[in-house]
């Protein structure tokens, strides 16, 4: 789920592996006991601090499953509620609410909108191709 590491980019591979492990560990803990939020939160917190320290970018899909306020892992139905709601401008929004601290995040659901990471140009392979092409 992380940024694709190129063949030449092995620099922070171990750190990425570690992030991956921590994320999985948090899921694993929650799967074993859905009430053990604290431990999952601890793992998410370490994951976040590692990525902050080493300046590693994480995929939005990962970041969106962590609460910004209390760092708990947001699993819909277990530690978070996910609702579709119409906002004032009549746009439909996804509301994700953390159950332990009450922090909400809103995401606009617009079928036309794609995150930069999901766009084909963002992939590293495509980028190098376009750069090499004209030169």
């Amino acid at each position, binding site marked *: 789920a992380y940024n694709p590491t190129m063949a030449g980019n092995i620099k922070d591979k171990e750190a990425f592996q570690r992030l991956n492990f921590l994320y999985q560990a948090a899921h694993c803990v929650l799967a074993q006991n859905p009430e053990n939020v604290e431990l999952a939160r601890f793992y998410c917190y370490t994951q976040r*601090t590692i990525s902050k320290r080493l300046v590693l970018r994480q995929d939005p899909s990962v970041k969106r499953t962590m609460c910004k306020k209390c760092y708990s892992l947001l699993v819909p139905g277990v530690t978070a509620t996910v609702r579709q709601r119409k906002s004032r401008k009549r746009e439909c929004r996804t509301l994700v609410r953390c159950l332990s601290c009450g922090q909400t995040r809103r995401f606009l659901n617009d079928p036309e909108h794609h995150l930069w990471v999901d766009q084909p140009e963002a992939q590293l392979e495509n980028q190098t191709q376009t750069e090499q092409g004209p030169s």
Partner: protein
Amino acid sequence: MERQLNSRLYEDQSKLLGVQSQDGRQAEAFTKAFLKNSLPSLSQESIRQFMDRKAVVLEFAKKKKEKQKRKRAKGLNAKQRREMKVFQLKEEHQRYELFLPLHELWKQYIRDLCNGLKSGSNPQIIQQKLLKADFHGAIITVVRSKCPSYVGTTGILVQEMKHVFKIITKENKLKVIPKRNSVFGVEIDGFVTHIYGSKFQLRSSERSAKKFKVKGTIDL
């Protein structure tokens, strides 16, 4: 109606009200200026046209909306964190068998990290990698310690704090073992490493960024 408005006030009235009426041209200039002031969005010409047909609400000048400053910092501060007990484990969750899958996951992670632990692989490289690896979920044993009662405790490492390892033992007990002055043994697929806790006194997230230097010896 209009005539009444345009007409001058009688002398006794003006005395009573304390207002002096101005003569025609001055009054006109005043009204124009007033209207222009209170209807800033219209031009002079359109104001006149407007006045011919419509009643005017004079308090029209739009007040600029002050933008509300957005609240920054969504996170919790230290006090709130302490109150919420963000990272404190509850007692009912402390069961050994709940953490076995975590251990399996960890084993898989270490194998992945070291490209499979075979007898031929270089132990130094593996130890280099383990230095920056994550130990949550590992089964660790206290091999040596200054305090003899810690020696021999085995369990799955659940939380790694700055100065302390939190371990779940097989008897479903959470044990807190200080890193200082003790040596921990970690076993993966027959490969045993020793962690010198005195050198490991860091938060686990900081360890991944830190450079370890050769400094002094550890006698235990």
